[in-house]
């Protein structure tokens, strides 16, 4: 191989991959901060992931574009189509990686709290705290809302807890699993009731 530790298949994998893997230190937001700090909140499914290179001056920088199919606008007014632009991705055989940023895959369905799309290196409010996967109970097929690590979200107050602490809190409350988690409708309702009128933001 011409390039040390860089087989050709890596080029293919990177080109077809899901974008940046995620390095960050984050302060978890309060639920009201999350809701009111976001430009808009949507339930959406990832339908495509592409990469592009933007050149500023003489410096090319890779970006990952995540195209979303919006299934429900929970708050705010998102553009149509809605495409998230994230810093990171492949460039001439290398890959730019932002450690700690959530990773998307085609088919993922989430409730997303979007802030600064096109203006921020990663347009989710609080990075992983701005993404809530919609999962299904294996036994009943019921949809429920989880935190970014798959932990069932049983109360919006858990959002202010670190991810690991949220899991511990669930144990402390003797949560028995996904059946106690909020449904997407319940979560959306809580978002709507917490959202302040635009003029009051």
């Amino acid at each position: 191989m011409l390039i040390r530790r860089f087989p050709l298949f890596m080029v293919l994998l990177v080109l077809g991959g899901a974008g940046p893997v995620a390095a960050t230190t984050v302060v978890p937001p309060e639920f009201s901060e999350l809701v009111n700090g976001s430009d808009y909140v949507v339930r959406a499914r990832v339908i495509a992931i592409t990469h592009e290179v933007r050149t500023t001056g003489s410096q090319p920088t890779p970006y990952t574009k995540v195209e979303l199919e919006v299934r429900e606008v929970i708050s705010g007014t998102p553009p149509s189509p809605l495409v998230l632009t994230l810093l990171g991705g492949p460039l001439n055989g290398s890959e730019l990686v932002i450690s700690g940023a959530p990773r998307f895959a085609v088919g993922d369905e989430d409730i997303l709290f979007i802030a600064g799309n096109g203006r921020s290196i990663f347009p989710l409010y609080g990075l992983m705290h701005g993404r809530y996967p919609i999962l299904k109970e294996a036994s009943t097929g019921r949809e429920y809302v989880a935190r970014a690590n798959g932990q069932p979200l049983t109360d919006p107050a858990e959002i202010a807890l670190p991810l690991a602490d949220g899991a511990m809190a669930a144990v402390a409350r003797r949560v028995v699993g996904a059946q106690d988690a909020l449904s997407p409708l319940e979560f959306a309702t809580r978002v709507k009731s917490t959202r302040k009128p635009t003029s009051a933001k």
Partner: protein
Amino acid sequence: MNAHSGRFKALIRWLFAFTCGVGALHSHVLNTDSSNIYVVNWDPGKVLIRVKLPTPTSALIDGSTYASSFVTAAQSWNSVIQVLQLDPVIEAEGTHVERNDLNEIVMASTIRGEAFPAGVLAVTISWRLGNAWTESDIIFNQTVTWDSYRGGLRPGIRDFQRVAIHEIGHLLGLAHPDEATPPQTVRAIMNSTISEIDVAQPDDITGAQTLYGARGSSPLNDRFANATEIAMITGSLSLTGANIGATWEAGEPFHAGDIGSGSAWWRWTPPISGTYTLTTLGSNFDTTLGLYTGSAVNGLTTVASNDDIENGVIRTSRVTTSVTAGVPYMIAVDGWSGSYGQITLNVAYTSDNSDPQGRYFNLSTNTTLSAGEQVVPGFVISGSVKRKVLVRAIGPGLTQFGVGSVLADPTITINRIVNGVATVVATNDNWASTLAPTFSAAGAFGLTAGSTDAAIEVELEPGSYTVTVGGNTGNSGQVIVEVYESNPVSGTPGSEAPSRFFNLSVNTILSVNEEVVPGFVVEGTKSRNVLIRAIGPGLTQFGVGGALPDPTLTLNRIVGGVATVIGTNDNWDSSLAKTFADAGAFGITAGSADAALQVNLLPGSYTVTVKGKTGTSGQVIVEVYEAP
């Protein structure tokens, strides 16, 4: 299964899954390439880091500057890792430039003119080429109020140093353990959120050492002469190691034709001849694998070698080859073109539970009966055709082996079990001398003609059977019960295949300090997955009173009359529940004190020693199943 027991089992399954999902996994997470398998790390050596941080406008709480605080953070990682050392150099305040192959540490309010996401204190932006990092820049959020202090978080003031330790962890290749799926709770500075943790925790350090080795360490089996000896007593085994910091020796072959990075060596002498498969599946980097004969590193003969299992996709390695028992082979695992990491080396004798030549051939149990007591081994014949079976209960015949107190006159009753109902199929008190050739053909030891031992050969339909053995006229003593696959109805043993022993069991009552030692033989040329259980408490569901409360089992392989322990178990692991179901074994309550072991066995002779914990007695059933 009734609805109640189904719900109960579901609850148990859930409890187990929940426990594992939340509490049991405590582990660092490493950044990988898009395979999610192979780690990304720095080439060994020094990594120059340009610290271009501003000078604080006032003294920081711990007396440091941002730059010196960062250097301290870097040094804390240096103190625990081996093949990589960070080399922070303090420069004038400046900005970072991406993709200039320089590692720059700066403070800024934006990144490329774009904002930090809300709540983000710092970001590490890294470039990788293949599986090697080539550049990492760390940008601290200038809009945050920073200081540098130890201990609990101070309201509104962020501790620069703990954030620096976290971000340097990313630079090394560590990810956020609290973002792992399924969720896990780990005490780590690498968790995504800032907390009272102000230094790298054991889990963080383990993660860094997984990538770069522990300070002061090097692989014990780096050099050919120090190869780790593989002792293979089961049909398969997995070993772990690393080639982090390993070196190339003069005259060492290029494994799989690649220049490598440095190899780790194992020495292996196969216990039996045959076809084996060696893999590095489970290793976290792109490996090469070589199998050799020879006694000097510069004089090896290649037996087999491999780079990728699937070229460029499954980048671990695999060779399948015939080897000879007793011959020492040398195994080298290296990294492709500079890769290095944690090695898993798997060695497996070709395993095939469907192989008609590979089957249980014989079951025996050796026990001492009190007056009126019985021992009841059982077996199952699978398939669709009849099978001839030789059953023996040897008492007097044991005296030729120096056994003293033997059961003077054992008797045999063979029962077929259908829907829980036993029907007598055959009985014997004293064996007929006409069976002597059958003994010889089955490989059973001979008996004195006219002895009061019992033996009978019967032709049995596929199904479940028990053999009840007791003493005539109330006598007591030691007896061995044996069940052999005799000549099949047609052809040679195993050749017609569709029927064979499937499950062997012994049901007995143990007195205090007594043990039961059933044995079995695995025949053929392939290894077999076997499930062995000693059930005491689990018998209560069938109405058995006086069950042995806490059985233990020890599995021995017998070679040349010498027993080698290859597995033990006291209380079974609940993860075996699915294996029980798949093998057709009845279920037992999770967490019970029954014993069970799943193991892959080479062809050969085995015994299972089962006894109760000190001072206990009661009924126990010992079972040997073919496991999936």
